């Protein structure tokens, strides 16, 4: 764990009311960050991630309360601690998180959905799902698709069924997995788009300094080699998907169930 100093005022002095320790690891191209905030007094704190984008932990499919973009706001109880965890496709930087604001608590904070009604519709609908629970079927009620060939990407690896990026493994919940026989392609496409973006940044460097900075962002030259290999795999997979899609489209356009006839026969 890396301890960072307490909150820094604009004049550079620090006030050791709250302290933020952090740890960062990287696995399979995903960076995982843990932040651990302690304080002598009960406070509301804001933490800013230096990694962008942030994949926050999810509860019942929506980001847990407190996350907005790359910022997290939460409460540290007096003489207690607050744990913050998230993931990011961006490479690790140090420090990965910083404490950017703190406010001593005046009164008990609660996060019922009644209070979120003042936060606008989006926050209310998310709070409703969090507090009332999602009504969808459990993961194992949805049958797995039959796999076609080993070189196409496995959709069991697509972790998120919403339209957003896959979330990190930290936090209380990793959210819902994709449905098995109706795979959600958005997480896979999103990951490819991210890799294309990274490749474009690497290929538009103007000088050696920029190149070194870009390589550091990705996580070193080995990570760049990995990226190159992954991009080649992406090209192959997309080509196979396109061919298979065309075949299915052709088959679908030629098929029609004679429902009216069948209904008369039963």
């Amino acid at each position, binding site marked *: 764990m890396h301890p960072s100093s307490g909150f820094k005022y604009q004049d550079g002095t620090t006030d050791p009311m709250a302290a933020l320790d952090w740890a960062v690891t990287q696995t399979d191209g995903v960076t995982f960050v843990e932040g651990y905030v302690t304080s002598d007094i009960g406070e509301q704190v804001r933490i800013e991630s230096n990694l962008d984008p942030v994949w926050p932990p999810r509860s019942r499919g929506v980001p847990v309360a407190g996350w907005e973009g790359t910022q997290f706001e939460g409460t540290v109880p007096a003489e207690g601690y607050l744990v913050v965890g998230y993931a990011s496709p961006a490479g690790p930087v140090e420090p990965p998180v910083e404490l950017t604001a703190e406010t001593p608590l005046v009164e008990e904070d609660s996060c019922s*959905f009644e209070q979120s009604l003042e936060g606008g519709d989006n926050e209310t609908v998310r709070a409703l799902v969090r507090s009332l629970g*999602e009504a969808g079927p459990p993961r194992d009620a949805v049958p797995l698709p039959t796999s076609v060939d080993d070189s196409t990407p496995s959709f069991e690896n697509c972790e998120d069924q919403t339209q957003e990026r896959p979330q990190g493994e930290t936090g209380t919940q990793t959210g819902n997995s994709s*449905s098995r026989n109706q795979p959600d392609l958005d997480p896979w496409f999103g990951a490819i788009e991210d890799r294309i973006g990274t490749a474009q940044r690497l290929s538009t460097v103007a000088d050696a300094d920029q190149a070194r900075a870009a390589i550091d962002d990705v996580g070193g030259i080995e990570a760049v080699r990995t990226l190159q290999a992954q991009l080649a795999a992406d090209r192959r997979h997309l080509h196979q998907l396109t061919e298979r899609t065309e075949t299915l489209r052709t088959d679908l356009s030629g098929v029609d169930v004679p429902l009216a006839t069948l209904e008369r026969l039963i």
Partner: protein
Amino acid sequence: MILTITAGKGGVGKTTVAYNLAAELDAVVVDGDLGMADLPQARGPDLHDVLTGRAAPVEAVHEECPVALLPCGRSLAGARAADPTALVEAVRAVEDAYGSVVIDSPAGLCSDVGLPLFAGDACLLVVRPTRPAIADAIRTRELARAIGTPLAQVVLNRVDTPSLDAQDSRRDSIASTFGAPVTELPDSETLARAQRAGHPVRAVAPECPASTQFRTLARTVEGSLS
């Protein structure tokens, strides 16, 4: 206008009320509960397609049905893939295009009830005069209150016709429990037959008592929401 029809528990006739009220209000009925899954309808996108972003809400409205219908999704996979939080915007888009929406919401207290309640300008609770139905409905009423959606009517459904005195005192007692006016809908074989055939009762028997009662209920609800 968006009206959410819900109940404390299933089996009280919520879907029949939703369907017939939508017919009287000239509204699109959104099937949030599989209640209209066996109504005849053309192929096309359904609520799961809308909630996964594959179809725009208006594309999923079937106007060729006796009552304009946004049908429920029917697959487990679709239910897992759907984003429930997208329902509120989807219903508002249908209201913008068509003017009025009736949501047939599931019964109970989960977010598949909470979100339709939040989307509605008002709600209507269907109960039967049995202890479990009313006890469960009271919990749903509290949920609506917490979400801030006013209760426009309680529909006491499929009542028999005992003496008038008993009816009045039961109706008053329910009205004061729920804090909303109560409409009684008697049991009706005509209504049940029409529903089984996938039609609103006003289309098959416009002068029968059930049709008259739904007409009155619709005007009352419109009046209370205007």
